[in-house]
């Protein structure tokens, strides 16, 4: 990006998939529920109600912290962040400001084949707010509040400003999502709001050493939009710097429809949140033993799995990292290899056919796949036994992917089986040779390439179902006699 270097830091909120909310026993699984059906005196801020910390949420946060190489603290504390908004029932959010549960972590990214470390400043636990629902135009506007989400546990992860391009920001988020899914603490679904990201960006003119003010960007509800919004902001800031204009320190929002950001509020309009220790909740104290137990019970993480796939299955780094980016995909791979005994071939099929079909058909979730390891085994067997060609196998796979039918059934139903009947092939060949004796002559006189013409003729007659090797063999047999 030339001499103008972007400096990006991210703040990510991850909704934890605990059974209950952070401070009450309402269900935390509130997505798509009718408004105000998961509420109680605590999460609607009734007078006199008190918060009681959900230990499962603390454990999830510790898991996340260890998975992201954080230092986890035995002592942390909740604080109140005070501000007024209708979706915030108590007039304050319970969060961890002074003593977060974890500090100093990092994630490692692969950026165009190079390793890149992004340092993480802190990870803390906090409660989500409710949701405002606006109805009608400005004259007859009505606003409603849905408190279902109020009190759902979140972790907030804050990076250092180590991210150097919008693309790196996207890669970072993909990595982070992969981790939270691996350890099973969140769905990581950005579209459903289970993962939210705000970004801070400033630009340094490397020639003069001058730096722009920092701009915060909000309202980006997909990885793609994070990348786009940051690209937009980068060029907006660079243009301003080139023109010698001041870039005000402000908060801007991404407008998906217009593919641009607009100013939401200036620095002067920022609130003083008057943080202070939450007196209703004793400090969170976790014993060394408990921390160690949680750390040790972490599942294999993406980076570890990738390395193992390279060592154990001999996969190239790129394939290994693609397959291990999603835990379910990696699991499917391993189960498939277990029954096929073919790590390399399996990985080739995953990397090409499976991922292409998932992409084409918009299947994001490996859990929803109809293809099973057994299906791969059958396909490999069909190829090995010569019953289908590789190209036919791909066609079979597509059908299996869409219908979940077994490959042999697909072959049967579609009549896709290779024509291996040599008598039939011979018949077709003899016919073709009769029609074109000139070509036969050419072959006899040493023009080996002409064989392609005859193979083509057989393919045409069999609808592509003949095995070229068999055709070749039969053809040579006829010539010799």
């Amino acid at each position: 990006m030339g001499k103008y270097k972007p400096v990006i830091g991210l703040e990510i909120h991850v909704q934890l998939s605990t059974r209950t909310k952070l401070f009450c026993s309402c269900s935390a699984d509130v997505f798509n529920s009718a408004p105000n059906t998961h509420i109680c005196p605590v999460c609607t801020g009734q007078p006199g109600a008190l918060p009681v910390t959900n230990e499962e949420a603390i454990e999830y946060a510790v898991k996340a912290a260890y998975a992201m190489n954080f230092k986890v603290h035995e002592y942390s504390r909740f604080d109140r962040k005070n501000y007024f908004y209708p979706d915030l029932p108590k007039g304050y959010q319970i969060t961890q400001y002074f003593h977060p549960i974890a500090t100093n972590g990092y994630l490692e990214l692969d950026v165009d084949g190079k390793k890149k470390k992004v340092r993480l400043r802190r990870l803390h636990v906090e409660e989500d707010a409710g949701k405002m629902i606006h109805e009608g135009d400005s004259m007859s506007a009505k606003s409603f509040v849905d408190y279902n989400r109020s009190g759902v546990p979140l972790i907030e992860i804050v990076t250092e400003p180590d991210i150097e391009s919008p693309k790196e920001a996207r890669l970072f988020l993909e990595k982070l999502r992969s981790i939270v899914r691996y350890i099973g603490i969140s769905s990581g679904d950005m579209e459903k709001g289970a993962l939210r990201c705000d970004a801070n960006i400033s630009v340094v003119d490397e020639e003069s050493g001058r730096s722009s003010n920092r701009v915060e960007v909000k309202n980006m509800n997909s990885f793609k939009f994070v990348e786009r919004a940051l690209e937009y902001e980068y060029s907006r800031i660079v243009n301003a710097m080139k023109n010698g204009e001041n870039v005000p320190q402000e908060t801007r929002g991404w407008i998906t429809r217009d593919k641009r950001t607009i100013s939401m509020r200036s620095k002067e309009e920022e609130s003083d949140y008057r943080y202070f220790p939450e007196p209703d909740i004793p400090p969170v104290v976790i014993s060394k033993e408990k921390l160690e137990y949680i750390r040790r019970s972490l599942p294999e993480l993406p980076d570890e799995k990738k390395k193992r796939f390279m060592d154990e299955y001999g996969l190239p780094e790129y394939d290994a990292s693609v397959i291990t980016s999603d835990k379910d995909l990696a699991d499917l791979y391993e189960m498939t290899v277990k029954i096929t005994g073919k790590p390399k071939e399996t990985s080739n099929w995953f990397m090409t056919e499976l991922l292409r079909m998932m992409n084409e058909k918009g299947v994001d979730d490996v859990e929803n796949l109809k293809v099973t390891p057994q299906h791969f085994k059958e396909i490999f067997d069909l190829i090995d036994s010569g019953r289908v060609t590789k190209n036919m196998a791909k066609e079979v796979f597509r059908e299996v992917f869409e219908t979940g039918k077994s490959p042999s059934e697909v072959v049967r139903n579609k009549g896709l089986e290779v024509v291996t009947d040599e008598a039939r092939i011979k018949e077709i060949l003899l016919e073709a040779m009769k029609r074109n004796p000139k070509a036969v002559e050419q072959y006899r006189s040493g023009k080996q390439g002409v064989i392609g013409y005859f193979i083509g003729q057989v393919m045409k007659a069999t609808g592509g179902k003949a095995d070229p090797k068999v055709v070749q063999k039969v053809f040579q047999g006829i010539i010799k006699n």
Partner: protein
Amino acid sequence: MKISDFIGAREEKIKGLLKDIKKRDKDINAFLTLLENPEIPEGPYSGVPIAIKDNITTEGIRTTCGSKILENFIPPYNATVIEKLRKAGFVVIGKTNMDEFAMGSTTENSAFFPTKNPRDTERVPGGSSGGSAAAVAAGMVPVALGSDTGGSIRQPAALTGVFGFKPTYGVVSRYGLVAYASSLDQIGPLATTVEDIATVMDVISGKDEKDSTTSDVKLNFRGFKDIEISGRNAVIVKEMMEYEGLDSEVAKSFEEFVKTLEKMGVSVRRVSLPTIKYSIATYYIVAPAEVSSNLARFDGIRYGLRVSGENLKELYLKTRNAGFGEEVKRRILLGTFTLSAAYYDAYFEKAQKVRRKISEEMYEVLEDNDYMISPTSPIVAPKIGEKTDPLSLYLMDFYTIPANLAGIPAINIPFGEVRGLPVGMQIMGGRFSDASVLALAWKVEKAMG
């Protein structure tokens, strides 16, 4: 009036009592809400009437906190203490008047009307649990619940001549107590005998899963009379006795009190706690800071008063301006100021440190000594309207505030009269020595006959 007078009472007796209260309360104004048909649950104390300070939530029964902003608020749930009282058979007969959100020392800060002192209706009953104290002192109920953040149970008990007990912080659940200052608030009973105080404590105390600041230390309120008193020692804090606002006749009563203790075999000596003189300053930073946050939920959105405006901000401003009284606004402003980023270190953080220091000094003395004693209030009940400037009202809490800052148990013992008005003495003890504090109070009660 005692608990034992009512055990087993049925509808007729309760109805009779209510009729009587209705008549007599015209002169006292102890109650904000008096029930017509209170539920009489089964249990060991079935039939015993109890009055509840109006900042403790009662399902289906209006809970105002003495404020316009909650004038018509009917809570959807019961406080833990209410659930416990019901299980034991107590009959909640009504909700008592109080200074708005428990901020005040005279009950004159009630948004509805002041309560009068049954011992002299020209005078205040103290506060903020003035309604509960007056109801007990007037013989309307044998027991009442109050809440104590800086003396709000003990001081009105002293000014009306009844027993009032603030337990160790964490002994009684605060779930359902509308928060004033969460780190200081504690619910406790008012009664005419120490035995009745102990009975109510036995019912309402204990670990509560809904309040994570409650302790699982088990206290023996049933066996408090067996605790040996002779040979114990008590301290008088020099700095407390040097307080210039102490009425000389109250000071004389206190000397009598010391003699009474000594006669029982309690040795009394003086100690110096140099930091205790900063108690009021510390309290008036810590408490308002918590107030500014605790009272943010009264915004007109979900419950309580709403005054509409052109936009959201105007709705907030109009609602809170109309809903809160002067003293509440003053403390919200104070707290908003001391918590703001620019002043946090200089005020709130420093006050937290001083609070720790005061507490540590008190814990240290209470490690070697069983009790700390003082008058409960430096003065007897002032006349209604007599004290108006906030500072002189704040200073009335000089003896009671330290127990809240340190979270230790403290009781008011009615100890005779000064100029015909009740005077009260305070006994404090170490954390979780609640039963032992009651034991000494009971001995004094017996000694006075």
